[in-house]
């Protein structure tokens, strides 16, 4: 199971678990606000080597139709994917 973003964020005491923690992979906040630049994939150029997927510290790059896609909710914009891409299919764009 991949950790995933929950719709409901606990706010009161009655919603806090009575054990020591929530279940594994309980995410309530995004990391998207950390970013100044965002990686954008050129699917025309992408050859699906998956190097960016392998080297992403946050694991936000996943496979899609033989190419890759990015989960912008959790990408921090570090730029490792752009540096590792051998065919230059990733460019960094300024966040507006």
């Amino acid at each position, binding site marked *: 199971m991949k950790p995933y973003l929950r719709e409901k964020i606990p706010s009161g005491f009655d919603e806090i678990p009575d054990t020591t923690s929530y279940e594994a992979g309980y995410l309530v906040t995004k990391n998207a606000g950390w970013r100044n630049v965002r990686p954008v994939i050129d699917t025309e150029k992408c050859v699906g080597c998956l190097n960016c997927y392998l080297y992403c*510290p946050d694991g936000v790059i996943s496979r899609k139709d033989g190419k890759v896609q990015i989960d912008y909710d959790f990408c921090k914009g570090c730029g490792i994917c752009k540096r590792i891409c051998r065919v230059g299919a990733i460019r960094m764009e300024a966040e507006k």
Partner: protein
Amino acid sequence: MALTAKTLDETEYFYGHKACAGCGGSLAVRIALKVLGENAIAVLPAGCMSAVGFNFPQLCFGNNAIISTFAGTASMLTGVQAGLKAQGITDFHAVGFAGDGGTADIGLQALSGAIDRNDDILYICYDNEAYMNTGIQKSSLTPFGAKTTTTPAGKNIHGNLRQKKNMFEIAAAHDIPYAATASVGYLNDFIRKVEKAKSIKGTKYIHILAPCPTGWGVKTDETVGIAKEVVDCGLWYLAEYENGSFTLNHEPKEFSDVSEYLRKQSRFRHLTDEDIEIIKQSRDKKWEFIHKNFKKEK
């Protein structure tokens, strides 16, 4: 056949964490868990990865994970595997992720004890070469010349005066079933080593160099490149210890420029040419030892 990016488990087990952008340690944890799978039970002492992975109620591990005391990573791993075995559960991998301080300084005694008992655990040290979580203090794995908040660079003393502790060979000296070094710049090598450790019974130790952009003073996109360069210039090496002998996995044909590697990082920017000469000499001495005592991979 060895796992590659194409055959690796697609599930993410370390996701949504609050590590700095470009964090090498989180990359090591993420990849190791993908190799070990959902039956891995992770133990993390105080350190970056526990600080960024368990921000209640944000729980970034997709498998079971627990925080241990700073000194007790290996002893908690011992407890985890003993407890599961007592319940008749055998299909699991007890894995610890401790930083360089949590391994070579504070957790060394517990690790040594676990290796002595040969408990069935995998201990992974992600080495970012200082106590990064608390704001960059020197650990015994900080290299010579590095500037930290406790080894500042001044006119007379140029950063850390001590050499990096040889943690890999200390683990090997216990005659451990399996020990290895790795780097986040060479992930396929790391994947192969975690896979191998997964299949071995007894205590396993993997020491992975994981650059920290914040503490090393490099850009966030340079983590992987600098982790490759440290191996290419000979200041780190990829090796294994098994059945009583050392094997070198990767030998650079020719070392790349050490000063180029050092000058890129703000923690080394103050070094003089003489300091760099000392670093080069200690590198050559180390490689002389490696050539004498390590087998070459066939």
